[in-house]
């Protein structure tokens, strides 16, 4: 296989892995939460933001990243964490609040933090942009050609932190790429109801950096633009902004009644599900059915092993709550 074919198969396998991960989260999350849905109950309490539909953003970008490149992600982090190579066993255990989790169960699903592959995420909108600029500068000033990528939702582009970080990155020529996953909604509020511009990519002009718009939720199209923006950063030319039109196939969080969606919207989005579409394209491009099946099976096995690990792992001792407030 050529390197491009390898990359495409890698993107497909990681999309499958991510989707299968969310597919196993769903029943686990609802354990103990039925017939009465109470977010506090079951093996995974709290809010749960699934990434179904947004997988192309994660794989299209991360296909160009190395382990020493830094990624900051959002409250909807699973697909990005998986594509960045976060330890999936420890990630799953963290989501289950177990001792073997990335942070020993202290953080949970919105606070996955794996310094081994330079990944972190946050529950605060647009919080990751500043640290990505900083990580990019730390690399630049130490003579490394590592880059940083900050993922954000389209709603976060209306935060002050977005505009401040883009300006700062441009002033410093920081090797950072800002990636907007535009899934059309900030919880219930549609982008058009709260954003002054039709396309957030145009906001790059204000900060004198390239602004790319990817109209299709398509790994190949995203990867092409991502390759360009990441090369630009790695070559010391400065920051870029990428806006991707993606889709959120689930609610904002699990249990969201989604009354704000127009009738039939989810059905229409599901017809455009990027994973079966990409599978069909790979087959049309000459990939062997057997290779895809094998990649799918491997991806599923990895996820299933991670869930077994998490479920069998023990809970932390209660007193461990007091550890690590300071280093």
């Amino acid at each position, binding site marked *: 296989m050529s390197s491009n074919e390898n990359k495409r198969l890698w993107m497909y396998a990681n999309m499958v892995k991510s989707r299968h991960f969310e597919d196993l989260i769903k029943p686990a999350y609802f354990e103990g939460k039925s017939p009465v*849905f109470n977010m506090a109950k079951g093996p*995974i*309490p709290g809010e749960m933001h699934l990434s179904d539909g947004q997988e192309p953003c994660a794989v299209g970008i991360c296909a160009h990243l190395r382990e020493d490149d830094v990624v900051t992600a959002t409250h909807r982090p699973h697909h990005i964490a998986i594509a960045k190579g976060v330890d999936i066993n420890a990630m799953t255990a963290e989501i289950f609040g177990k001792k073997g989790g990335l942070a020993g169960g202290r953080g949970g699903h919105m*606070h996955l933090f794996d310094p081994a592959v330079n990944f972190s995420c946050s529950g605060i909108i647009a919080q990751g942009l500043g640290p990505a600029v900083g990580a990019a500068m730390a690399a630049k000033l130490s003579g490394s050609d590592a880059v940083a990528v900050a993922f954000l939702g389209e709603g*976060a582009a*209306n935060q002050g932190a977005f505009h401040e970080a883009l300006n700062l990155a441009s002033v410093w020529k920081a090797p950072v790429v800002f990636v907007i996953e535009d899934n059309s909604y900030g919880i*219930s509020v549609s982008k058009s109801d709260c954003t002054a511009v039709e396309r957030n990519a145009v906001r790059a002009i204000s900060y004198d950096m390239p602004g790319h718009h990817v109209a299709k939720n398509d790994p190949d199209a995203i990867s092409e633009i991502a390759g360009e923006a990441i090369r630009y950063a790695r070559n010391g030319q400065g920051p870029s902004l990428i806006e991707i039109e993606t889709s959120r196939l689930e609610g904002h969080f699990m249990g969201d009644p989604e009354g704000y969606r127009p009738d039939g919207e989810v059905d229409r989005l599901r017809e455009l599900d990027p994973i079966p579409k990409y599978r069909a394209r790979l087959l049309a491009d000459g990939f062997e059915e057997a290779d895809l099946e094998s990649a799918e099976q491997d991806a599923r096995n990895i996820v299933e092993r991670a869930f077994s690990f998490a479920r069998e792992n023990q809970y932390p001792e209660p007193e461990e709550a007091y550890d690590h407030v300071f280093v």
Partner: protein
Amino acid sequence: MSSSDKPISAPPAERRLTIAKAMSEAIGQEMERDSSIILLGEDIGRMGGVFGTTTGLFDQFGKDRVKDTPISETAFIGAAVGMAAGGMRPIVELMFVDFFGVCMDAIYNLAAKQSYFSGGKVSCPMVLMTSVGGGYGDAGQHSQCLYATFGHLPGMKVVMPSNAHDAKGLMLSAIRDDNPVIFMFHKALQGMGWLGTIAGSITDTPDDDYVVPIGKANIVREGRDVTLVGLGATVHHGLEAATRLADASIEAEVIDLRTIAPLDRQTIIQSVSKTGRLLVVDDDYLSFGVGAEVIASVCETGAGPLKCPPQRIAHPDIPIPFSPVLEHFVLPDAKKIEQAVLSMMKDEK
């Protein structure tokens, strides 16, 4: 308008509401009465607020008075201060108190100082409502309380109901107040279907217009042996502990602060003068907290004589952990209150 001070243990009547419903009812009734009120916030329009605080109000009052905002807190809270200076009475929701970090300047340096910097000429009649509290596994950026943070900063009033009756009365007081009021509502009490709700928060709530005054605590259970001071969820933990303690012939008096700032020191001091013992319980971080302020208020007046050193229970000085085994270990509950009181009764001089 009448002042109502009903204890929350009042017998059930025909209009039992959740805090969410009581808040949206109060806001809706006041919006009908006062056309200068405008509602702003994230997901408060068609969705009716993530925590049900504005249910039905978009349909009733339309998009000019019920405005979904972008995720731009610095801008819309700053804008609310400008609206307030311009004669409007904005009610603003910021979904989680944890999110105040991104827009704190507009609150503590702007809204809270409008009156002072204008020599009292410009008022800031805005209500900033926000959810607090954990216990349901939402981790360290969605479970905080921050009572003490807001109580500490001058120029804002800070209230939090423990039940629907008080929620409506406090909301009407907050809207009519010419100063900024932070209206906190506790997620464990809110009455949302998807969050567990402590049953005692669902109370008889009159349909008519009444206020619960800001700055006035409520004695929700009388007792001679120990004063338990709480707010929001910990009032209910205190009541539960008091019931158990009564089996051991210990009669606890339970005070619901209802207002954090200005603190009703008088009611607490009077109670402690009677009982001689004080335990303060809240779910904010321990140090420099509500408990410290209440205990200092009692000690510096020389109220007493105290029969044992005053005590406090709060969330320890650590970020709120996600894992249920960790979170439930550190959160205050009835059992911890009961044990603390038993220990206080034993330790007395």
